[in-house]
């Protein structure tokens, strides 16, 4: 018997007809799930019922009628590349499963307003949950973006799961050299099957921003929990701060670049780079043996093992101004002696590391750990991977790490920004 079959389930006293559903949640074969004709699903303990096949099922695989789309003169051509996540997806109402939709047809059907803003072309690159993304996926995404720009797209939108959206935005910021137009990374915090999803507004706002003269990789997501404004964040300056709120993404140590309003207005908030007139290319060389390590009181044995396994670079997400406990110092020293590059960012997230203030910081700095200023730990990890893909000499790596490539590190700490405060109710 297969999922989708029409079956009859007999209990001791009653019989129920309906459609066999997929096993609930994780593989639990002890229960079977039945969709009754009234639309409700109910579960039976397999051992307590007998099941009879009434009719083999044909899982509804409805093909939608095509949606006529002719390019509109005067509208920008925006390419949408899908990598997974639920920002643009359709639901199988039978099983509740969510499938990505990326044909221009499907996108326009889901979010018809897109057709009024731009000529959309869509393509699915991957369909993965974003925590599973790998270095080589970023290389492919970068190449695909360059390809779409070469085909004439005036902006590119990347739909992406939100868990690692900021890693992707950061990595692409380094890989896309001489970028001459916007690359907008967008996701959804609330699934797109629900009428209240943030997906459509995020997507519409992203497409609007993808038509501006900005020449950076950015993240575009809800600014608050109202459906009225999206924030555009610099790709190297943004981080996910909330597990579920639609305003989970917040710029750190910097202001957002722009706001996109529901009515369509795009308002620039802080300066962004514009095209230098050169053609974009993808420089994707990376060192995969780079790790990101968070310290904690009494931390030990979390660096030595990486050194032993041949890691070339380690970003330490230390405490406070850039400290690691004594229990970790010997491992770090050994790593430095073996030529591993160490950079220090802070688990405070907000603010800048300074390894001169306390003795512990001075000791590590003198030993060779590089303080990374106001760079986010996640961004530092991406950057070190990319830098080590190009240079290996310690001095050169250190110089490259502190040289701003995509707005990821700055000398000035602004008086007027302190992250998520403005995003709260």
């Amino acid at each position, binding site marked *: 018997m297969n999922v989708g079959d029409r079956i009859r389930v007999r*209990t001791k*006293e*009653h019989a*129920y007809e309906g459609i066999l*559903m997929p096993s*609930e*949640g994780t593989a639990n074969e002890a*229960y079977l*799930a039945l969709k*009754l004709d*009234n*639309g*409700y*699903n*109910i*579960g*039976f*303990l397999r051992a*307590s019922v007998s099941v009879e096949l009434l009719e083999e099922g044909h899982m*509804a695989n*409805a093909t*939608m*009628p095509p949606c006529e789309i002719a390019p509109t003169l005067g509208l920008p051509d925006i390419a949408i590349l899908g990598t997974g996540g639920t920002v643009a997806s*359709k*639901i*199988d*109402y*039978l*099983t*509740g499963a969510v499938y990505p939709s990326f044909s221009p047809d499907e996108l326009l*059907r*889901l979010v018809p307003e897109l057709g009024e803003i731009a000529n959309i072309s869509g393509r699915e690159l991957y369909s993965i949950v974003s925590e599973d993304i790998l270095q080589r996926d970023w290389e492919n995404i970068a190449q695909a973006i360059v390809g779409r720009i070469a085909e004439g797209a005036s902006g590119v939108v990347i739909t992406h799961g939100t868990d690692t959206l900021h890693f992707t935005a950061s990595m692409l910021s380094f890989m896309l050299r001489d970028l001459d137009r916007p690359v907008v990374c967008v996701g959804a915090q*609330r699934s797109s*099957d*629900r*009428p*209240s*999803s943030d997906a*459509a*507004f995020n997507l519409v706002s992203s497409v609007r921003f993808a038509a501006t003269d900005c020449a950076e990789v950015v993240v575009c997501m809800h600014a608050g*929990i*109202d*459906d*009225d404004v999206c924030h555009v964040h610099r790709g190297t300056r943004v981080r996910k701060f909330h*597990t*579920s*709120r*639609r305003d989970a993404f917040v710029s750190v140590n910097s202001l957002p670049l722009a706001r996109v309003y*529901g009515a369509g207005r795009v308002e620039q908030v802080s300066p962004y780079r514009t095209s230098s007139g050169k053609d974009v290319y993808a420089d994707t060389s990376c060192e995969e043996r780079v790790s990101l390590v968070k310290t904690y009181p009494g931390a030990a044995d979390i660096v030595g093992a990486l050194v032993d396994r041949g890691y070339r670079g380690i970003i330490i997400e230390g405490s406070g101004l850039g400290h690691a406990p004594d229990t970790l110092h010997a491992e770090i020293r050994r790593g430095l002696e073996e030529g591993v590059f160490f950079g220090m960012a802070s688990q405070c997230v907000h603010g800048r590391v300074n390894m001169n203030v306390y003795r512990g910081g001075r000791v590590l700095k003198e030993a060779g750990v590089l303080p990374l200023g106001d760079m986010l730990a996640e961004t530092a990890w991406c950057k070190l991977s990319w830098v080590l893909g190009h240079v290996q000499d310690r001095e050169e790596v250190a110089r490259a790490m502190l040289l701003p490539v995509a707005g990821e590190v700055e000398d000035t700490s602004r008086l007027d920004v302190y992250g998520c405060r403005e995003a709260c*109710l």
Partner: protein
Amino acid sequence: MRDYAALGLRVGLEIHAQLDTGKLFCHCPSDLVDTHDAAIIRRLRPTMSELGEIDPAAREEFKKGVMHEYRASLGHACLVYADEEPPHDPNPEAVHTLLQIALLLDAVVVDSIHFMRKIVIDGSNVSGFQRTALVALDGVAHSAYGTVRIPTICLEEDAARLVETKGQTRVWNIDRLGTPLVEIATDPSMHHPRQARDVALFLGQAMKATRRLKRGIGTIRQDVNISIAGGARVEVKGVQELALIEDCVEREVERQVALLSLRDELVKRGVGGVACDIVDLSDLFSGTACSIIKGGVFGMRLAGFGGLPGREVQPGRRFGTELADYAKAYVRGIFHSDELPRYGITQAEVDAVRERLGAGPSDAFVLVAEKKGVAKKALEAVAYRARLALEGVPNETRRPLPDGNTQFMRPLPGKSRMYPETDVYPIRVTPERLAAVRASLPELPAETVRRLADTYGIATETAERIVDWDAEELFVRSQETYAMPPNRVLRLLETYAMLSKEPGMPAERPDEVLERFMEGHEKVTVEAYEGVLRELVRTGGSVDDALSALGISSVSEDDIRAAIRGVLDANAAVIAERGAEAFKPLMGPVMASLRGKCDGKTISALLREELDARLS
């Protein structure tokens, strides 16, 4: 008396009751609060069906730019019902209560409970869907008219409350959103209005037996589905009083019978259709005395409908009212030919209208006083309803009116779109768990009445009133702990029921206050119940505190006799002169000397005794 069986009456019930367990998918309380600390602005987007279709009405609303403002009070709402956080595990107390209700109704509990998402796009659910789960099937309800099957017992979320509509923005309060609701649906097999009432009562009592229902207005809502042979299914939505169910069914039967006879009349007259030719009649009313007409007047002939708009379909409601109800989506009202001349419209104006519309004596007409666009929509709606009359009874959702009549709300909705709620893991109801629920099932109210009557020797009627008030536990304590006479307990509950209508009284009965009263009940005279109870609820002190605050201190019988003797001593002359007749003039001074510390009945008995003693 109608022969309901001959009419082919079929009634089904869907009962919704709120559970007093806190919200279903978060840990917030579910009480109602009228203040708010936060307002969230949202848009709801119509989602695609399996076939890639979007409901045109939902899309239209979205395109119009309908916004929703959700008001929330901190402490009463969290991220879950702002749709900013996935649901927590289902409230275990609510699930337990559902299992109890299912077993009380002899239903089959499913082995695994699956929550579903039911798409609701009107904004009443922040997420755009309502979560609902089928917990049990195939229960039974008993009534003197026979047994009724209960196909489904569900656990679902209540919706947000609409506060107001400001232009394109609907303002909601989300305090009620997520309150667990029991939904019990019967099959449409009831065949007498009285049976619908009895079954509703039976189901209500089974739910109340769990002692987990919310109390108060609007916490139980009944939807009643009614049809007769040749008629159509009509859903009367949100009947809040049990007594009204019977009336609603009777009145709806009356309406369907009237509409069917109206159809037969139309067939007899050979009316085959309704044309919607809208005519501008504004010039005919340029000098009208009718204050409702401010400018444009548009009209339409209803050919062959002569005399029908005035025909009664329910007491006080005419077919013209039915036409008007459809037009009310656009205008405040219509005029129809059977009610004119009236409202300042003269016979001459009516004649002119008839002439312009070409409406003869066998025709009716309808007028709308509005701008052209609005008037057109209203008259089209009237024509649509008139066309439905050719079929007989339209499928409708109707709202109950206080007298049992009903009023059109909207056409019956189609099948709702439902798909699995993937954020909530199914709940396993193991045989062990079910056995544990079965072993500790609460008694049904009828059993409680019997137990109270038997145990405490009170009349069945008294026990019923106590159960009706949900005061069984309180009553048991009054007997076991405070030895309060049952009639005094009843008096106390009656007094509270009366006081609870005063402004500033708590929404829920404060049982701890009533218990404090019981603790000191011997010190309170019946006359002082109201004052003392009000004081207790207001200040929260003890009976002694209340008595002294009210200037009433309790007095012993000896004290009363001493006071009486004092008055008798001072009035020896009166007693000598009038003998037993002195009772009357002496009562006043005695009462005054006790200043309300004791009830008049006791005083008068003791005064009589003391006086008799002196005279003998």
